[in-house]
């Protein structure tokens, strides 16, 4: 169970380590050791591996792109339907990029796949370019109000050059609290 957990979460964690090498940030440890250390640090709390898609909790997203090659243009449509164009960079986590630019997107569990508060809609053209959602993400998406075909969790989207021009829409607040659109009847 441990190994499959590691393998499942590896792509996202590795992409973060990849971005470190792209940006030239010094990394004291090799990628594998880095992942192991990160998880062992968390593991003292819980034997099960936490799935954290961002190693820095938003610090990386506050850094500007170092060169034009890194830039990925992103459009957020906020809760009021207003478009906001921001310059992200390769390796940015959408949730923390949104926070940097004060887009109202909540991240209650801090990108650990334990809530659904960062639910966003992805534009059709870029939806297929995203890494497939893991089973864990799909299970959480089931709880999102107004779930649609193009629903994803923002904290699971990491920018690549391929996602240039991506548009992410933040859902409007709805009053529907049942997970499948159900309206309760007395029984």
């Amino acid at each position, binding site marked *: 169970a441990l190994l499959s957990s590691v393998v499942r979460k590896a792509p996202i964690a590795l992409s973060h380590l990849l971005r470190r090498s792209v940006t030239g940030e010094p990394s004291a440890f090799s990628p594998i050791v880095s992942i192991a250390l990160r998880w062992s640090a968390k593991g*003292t709390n819980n034997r099960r591996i936490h799935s954290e898609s961002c190693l820095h909790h938003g610090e990386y997203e506050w850094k500007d792109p170092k060169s034009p090659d890194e830039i990925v243009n992103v459009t957020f449509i906020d809760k009021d339907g207003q478009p906001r164009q921001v310059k992200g960079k390769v390796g940015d986590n959408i949730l923390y990029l949104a926070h940097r630019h004060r887009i109202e997107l*909540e991240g209650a569990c801090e990108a650990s796949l334990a809530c659904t508060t960062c639910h966003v809609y992805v534009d059709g053209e870029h939806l297929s370019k995203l890494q497939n959602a893991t089973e864990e993400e799909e299970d959480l998406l089931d709880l999102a109000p107004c779930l649609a075909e193009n629903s994803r969790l923002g904290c699971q989207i990491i920018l690549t050059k391929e996602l240039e021009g991506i548009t992410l829409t933040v859902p409007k607040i709805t009053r529907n609290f049942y997970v*499948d659109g159900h309206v309760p009847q007395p029984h």
Partner: protein
Amino acid sequence: TMNSCNGISARLVLVRRFVSTCTRQNTSTRVGIVGSGPAGFYTAHHLIKHNSNLHVDIFDRLPIPFGLVRYGVAPDHPDVKNVINQFSVLAESERCRFIGNVSLGKDITLAQLQPFYHALVLAYGADDDTFLRVPGEDLDGVLSARAFVGWYNGLPEHAHLNPDLSGDTAVIIGQGNVAIDVARMLLTPISILETTDICEHALEAFRKSSVRRVWLVGRRGPLQVAFTIKEFREMTKLPECLAVLDRADFEGVRELPADMPRPRKRLTELLVKTADAVGSEPATGSRKEWGLRFLRSPVAFLCDQQRRKVSGVKLEINKLEGDPLSARAVGTGHFETLDCSLALRSIGYKTKPVDKDVPFDPKGGIIPNLNGYVSTGLYCSGWVKTGPIGVILSTMNDAFETADTILNDLQHGNLPTPSDSGDVLELLFTLPGLHPTSFSDWKLIDQVEQSHGRPKGKPREKVTSLEMMMNIIRTHSAQN
């Protein structure tokens, strides 16, 4: 207790602790929130974010904050509790103040509190039980799941629950996420539990527990289960534990209508897949098992002649009437018995009216409201508003809705002017026997809990007695 000799200096210390992180101005909008769980904090978060001239006081009847995030979320789900970090930043910010150990209805009335605020928000959730009202519900060994969760999570009022885990079968009435949490706690290997923030008294009890079989009993069928897929999937992956589902229960749900909402469809497919896999796993010598029993309603809890201790539950077999989305369970007049040594009632939490001036709908178990508005200057948020259903996401959305209603009323001049322009703390300090706590006090307890947990390899060892919490706070005050 504070005696009169050092009463004045002690009160000065208290005021200093509260005021240091809060710059209060008379011209700002003042909002009071009763309840410091997700509903309370998310309401505060949204209000403060959208109005720069607004201050919030968040009250809780316990000396420490966070409500169900601390006392409801299971110990083995620590990531769900990460939201506490965000709430802590808010509580320590200039325009937010936590005031604990003040109980609405017991220590202070609505009429005493309201005059200090432009708006008062009731966000105190649901801490009462729904009862089955069947014979034997008062037997030893018949417990509320809510109390059981409070017990392993260290809620002071349930610290001495002392459930008897010496038998081999537990029956849980209810098939929601709380029922699943309880089942998982009963069946999770100790080696996993002992690295969590589960309370030591519960860990000891689980170490000695001989419960190896847990049934979750629901009055309707597979299409009506209230638990969600993440939690069910977690059960299927429990180490050293077998899922025992009966294929026959799923005959009617193999073919699902095309327009069935995705969440229900995915969950039902997983249920069917799990049932189909029963018997095909290699024999691992697993000592534990759990299962779902459908179409069964408890009509009585049974005990043997000598003792008032539960030995089983009598169930009536139901049939379903109506379409799947609104199916009703109807008794058939046929019965069966399920042996058990522990029975847990997990059929929903309930809100109770805490103050005579708070309107309450006993049938729906909520405070009647329109988008959170109750009456002039009075609002509600969270489970008192919607009923006790929903995860942090839904409570968050709901809290934002109430906050928007308040902001809207503020904008249109519909909020009353506080008749008392003073600080509510001045009143609280005059009430006999009241010892309000601050967020700094919580941080003291937080440090103590973490330092007690560290040598045991746990993130914290929770303080489970109110007396001990207040002692920690007073000792620190005296030293400083």
